[in-house]
């Protein structure tokens, strides 16, 4: 089996989001980077499926040169190799992102055969466009299910489970297919030190696609109101309890 996972590098914002002067991006000078927890679960699932059935797992990102860090992280979890579509700092809109991913998948499949499954996050951590996976599926002419918390390959079909209010909805898709997943699909492993070292030697294939014009075109970012309240201190230590309960009574929950 061959499986591809698509991940996006995003800043690890802490308690407060600070923007750059031109309001085009988050100020990241003092921040670390990561990928969405949804995508992390996609990586873990791909590794488990290949461990169980044999074959090859590949991770792909479209991102700046530094995004190779996220590719190495995925390979430390057990992914075999990486494809890096190197972009400039400018963010690509979801249509352009999907286009570049489709081109890269076509090129890889021409050389190595089709991917049975392509994993996406349900939505990217930062932009939350809810669409790149679906666009890629249409371009490849493959079925797609979103928001999955269960993915089981059974012969030449994949059984997919979605949490909905009242239970789980089940879909059964023929392979090859595209799936978008949610955190909670599995509990990703922590990479071991030897696995991290091995990841440094795994192959990364880089290319630089050109960015088409944006049709969902960012004008500027705005931090919403609501940050910067000041909490009323009801007390320190166990002595705070009476004031807390008085407040709970006022709200009407005690």
């Amino acid at each position, binding site marked *: 089996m061959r499986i591809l996972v698509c991940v996006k590098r995003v800043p690890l914002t802490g308690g407060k989001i600070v923007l750059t002067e031109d309001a085009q991006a988050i100020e990241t000078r003092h921040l670390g980077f990561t990928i969405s927890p949804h995508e992390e679960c996609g990586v873990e699932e791909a590794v488990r499926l290949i461990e169980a059935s044999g074959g090859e797992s590949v991770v792909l990102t479209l991102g700046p040169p530094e995004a190779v860090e996220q590719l190495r992280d995925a390979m430390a979890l057990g992914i075999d190799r990486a494809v890096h579509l190197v972009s400039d700092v400018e963010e690509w809109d979801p249509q352009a992102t999907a286009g570049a991913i489709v081109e890269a998948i076509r090129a890889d499949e021409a050389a190595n055969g089709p991917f049975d499954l392509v994993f996406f996050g349900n939505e990217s951590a930062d932009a939350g466009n809810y669409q790149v996976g679906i666009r890629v599926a249409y371009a490849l002419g493959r079925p797609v299910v979103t928001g999955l918390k269960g993915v089981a390959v059974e012969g030449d079909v994949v059984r997919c489970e979605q949490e909905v209010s009242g239970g*789980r909805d089940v879909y059964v898709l023929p392979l090859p297919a595209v799936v978008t997943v949610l955190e909670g699909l599995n509990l990703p492993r922590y990479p071991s030190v030897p696995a991290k070292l091995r990841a440094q030697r795994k192959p990364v294939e880089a290319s630089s696609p050109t960015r088409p014009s944006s*049709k969902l*075109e*960012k004008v500027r970012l705005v931090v919403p109101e609501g940050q*910067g309240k000041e909490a009323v201190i009801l007390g320190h230590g166990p002595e705070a309890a009476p004031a807390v309960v008085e407040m709970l009574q006022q709200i009407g*929950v005690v």
Partner: protein
Amino acid sequence: MVLVYVEEPSELGQQALAFARELGGPVHAFTADVTAPVEGVETLYVAEGDAFASYAPAAIAQALVELVERLSPAAVVAAGTERGNEVLAHVAAKLDLPFSANCVAATTGDPFLVTRVRWGGSLLEEAHLHGNVKLLTVQPHVVAAEERAGEPAVERFTPALSEADLVVRVVERVPAAAGGVSLAEAKVVVSCGRGAGSPEGFGIIEELAGLLGGAVGCSRAVTMAGWRPHTDQVGQTGTKIAPDIYIACGISGATQHMAGCKGAKAILAVNTDPEAPILASADYAAIGDLHEVVPAISAEIRKAQAQKAGRG
């Protein structure tokens, strides 16, 4: 005119209709759910046929595409639910049009100027939405729903579907085991983060939640450690909650956690660190070790309840 996709009879569907009316021009609706009682629109288009017996996103999207081609709406709007976003992304892919998910505002024109949600609501983006038909969804709970009476004209149609539109559909619904208070709907949520120190640290959290008839939540630090299941996680990639009071113990207040509790009417933080970022989003705080503060609150509630019982 604006065409609104109404998934099912719901508050969020009403919010999407209200958002669409704000755009100006006549509003028409489309549904594949015959039970959706849509009022206050000019025409309600209802897709019929076996394809719509269970949820099939590509089939619903194809029905919308057929209407778009026939009616040439200025925009197609849906609620920013999982399925609203999914169906509109299918429409976008089929028509190769841009699509803006989870908008909080839109100004018409060409392009539209939209304000949309990023980072689960922790950040907003103003963007130009291009395309000859503007596709967008409405972020839940930012515009008020409005009930509009008025029977619409109803037009039933059977869209022309391809094999591919029918491949992906719900084939089975596995009912959930009946559990305790649902996190998403609880009036009171008591959560704990890394400050719990261990899975056993949740004993006092469960006790307090029990006394208040509430649900237990947690942060991602806790689920990553394997202390609690992901179904307990509050946040951007966990459950979105909207209780009357959210009691967050030993949680620092990362933006991704706070994205899940923006709907809380009030927040009480219990934290050893008076500088913790959560204090900038909380209404109340108790500074101290949660292992001491939380049992003291529980004891005080028992006292209050006993007094009330004594009086009553």
